[in-house]
């Protein structure tokens, strides 16, 4: 079985089958680039992901392994068309997978899924963040994401007034 060595930013190496790795758009491109530039067709590619640490990379690979037989979703799928993909594609396994994670890990996972071009994982993690936003009050958002208001004077009121032009369709 052809393998590829994927190395995290903090130096942990993961041996992954090329078939599995190619389910990530980014890793697929890197493997193909390696093949074109390498004289030895048997050589094992090695890819360093300098922005993703081991704990997160492990989670991405774990998710890919679980979903190895899913159809690959196009990364550039239209946003409007893509609405609902996350709900449709979210299995019980996905829910169990995400359940123990705190918001910080989820956000790292979103960045990793985006960077590695794993659309299914990106969908379910973005949907999880969305669930922390939709239906929440402004104060709840500030608490959940550790944010502080920096509006001054009547800026906040003015912003609210701008909203009156907009309607829910």
């Amino acid at each position, binding site marked *: 079985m052809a393998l590829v060595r994927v190395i995290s930013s903090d130096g942990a190496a993961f041996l992954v089958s090329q078939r599995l790795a190619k389910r990530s758009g980014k890793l697929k491109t890197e493997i193909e680039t390696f093949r074109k530039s390498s004289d030895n067709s048997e050589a094992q590619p090695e890819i360093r992901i300098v922005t993703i640490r081991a704990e997160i990379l492990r989670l991405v690979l774990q998710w890919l392994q679980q979903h190895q037989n899913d159809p690959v979703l196009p990364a550039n799928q239209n946003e409007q068309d893509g609405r609902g993909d996350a709900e449709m594609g979210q299995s019980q396994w996905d829910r169990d997978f995400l359940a123990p994670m705190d918001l910080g890990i989820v956000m790292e996972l979103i*960045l990793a899924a985006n960077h590695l071009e794993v659309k299914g994982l990106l969908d379910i993690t973005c949907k999880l963040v969305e669930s922390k936003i939709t239906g929440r009050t402004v104060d709840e958002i500030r608490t959940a994401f550790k944010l502080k208001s920096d509006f001054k004077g009547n800026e906040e009121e003015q912003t609210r007034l701008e909203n009156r032009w907009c309607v829910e369709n």
Partner: protein
Amino acid sequence: MEETCIEVDQYPAKRKASSICEKNISLTATIGESDNHSSSPLMHFPKEIWSHIFNYVPQNDRLAHRVVNKEWCKNIDEFSTVDVNFNADYPQTKYRKRVFELRIRNCTFSSLHVPFSPDFKNPLLVKEITFTTHVSSSNVLKVLSVCSNVESLRFLTTMSSETSFKEDETTSNVFNNLKNLQYLEIGILTFLDRCPKTRSKTYSAIIGNDNVLLPSLKELRVAFLVLHIEWFQLFKFVSRHSVTLKSFNVMSPCGERIVGGEQRCKDTIVQKGLTFPQLDTLIVNGVSECACREDIWLLLDQQKQLKRCETDISQGALFLKEVIERNHKTIRVLKLHEISNLDSDELSCDMFRKCSSLQDLYLRFEWGFVIVVNVGGGTSKSRVPVLYNLESLPESLKRLTLCGSQLLSDELDSLFSKKRVLEEVTLGKAETLKAKNTGLTSKILTKMLENLEKLRKVRISIDMICEHECREGNYCGDLNGIWLKIWELAKEMDVVDNEIGDYEGRCCGPRYNEETCMSHQPFIDMVFKTDPLRVSFLNRLKELQSQDDAV
């Protein structure tokens, strides 16, 4: 085969990968970096992720959250799109400029009759525009000139507040520049009868303008009473767009009987060999009394890939059968009103057997041509067509409506004796003499509830209920016997549908069993919001039947 993913070893942090390294890292920030504005990693998300998340968040929430903090507000404004309702009479005009700086996707304009400058910061993002009351033509043209990427355009005005377009070159140039326009709707909201002198100016300037050509037009909807001279204009417009048009939806094209001598569209179709290769949706109502129905026949006669067809063209069973035969692979929604002129006494549902994608079937027979079943070989007193072979209706059906027909109990029994995915069933008004062994019995209702596991709505006209089980005499509006108990049970279990519209709702069921209701045909309307509710109702119904049988 399971794929391998093994963690093999730990590299020293500074060790470089031997063969290839990532290049051009595209992340805007690394998690854990400190930031002056916020400690949340969320604030470091790149644009595409914000867009992805906001794609799931409803607009009302996004707007409310604009006051979380300035950066959050900026992200919402820059990475999501909004729908704007722009009423120029709105008092907070000082915020107008700020609103047009948002990423507007859908904009509704009203009361825009004074000179206006459409200062959209992102005009090419605007995909949907609706013009409603009191919008001047010059403002319409200004908006459309800058928002040239618009895909959906609607004019919803009243006759008194219509745009006063001119059929000139400027108008056609602006419209012809809308290269991506896919949906065009013109609806005139008027409650007055129109006379030929009050032709819609919007309609004339767009539909009636021979120079207007929209290269991407897929859907056309004209939602008002079109006069016969306008019908010819409409047909010319449709003909110009025949290559791209997928959906043609026009209500009441004429509303009046056309006398001879008018220009006809027939020549356009027949002589020029006009075809509509993309057309899959044809919704044309109000033509049963109108000569232009022949144009619709000709149009229908050549279609082979219709997915949705709704019309009241009065045609025979043979024509109907041919239309279904040609489109049986694709048809999903078929709604035929005022079916009449049947060629024979029989109309078999066998014609629908091959429609494997059909989900919504609506058949309404014209008053006076309703079906009386001739049972046992006796002679019927009047010439009546019979709808039979209900069992052969396709299993893909989710909604079924049969109105103006009486149905054999055995036929209904066979229809509901097997598992189906039907979600809504309407057995509507017959309003005619009933023969023996026709209509719905309580046992058939039980079978319906038992076998239609996805059933959510049932609407039964009371005169569709089997006479010997329900009513005394030909007296609509009164229930008795087991059906009265069923009705009481429905009320007790709160499955009576209270959301039926007023049009027919005021005569829903015997709860309005007043003198005023007697001239109407009451209905029993039931809605099962959950499947357990259907099952509970079914069980109680079975108990009722056991008690009734014992008596």
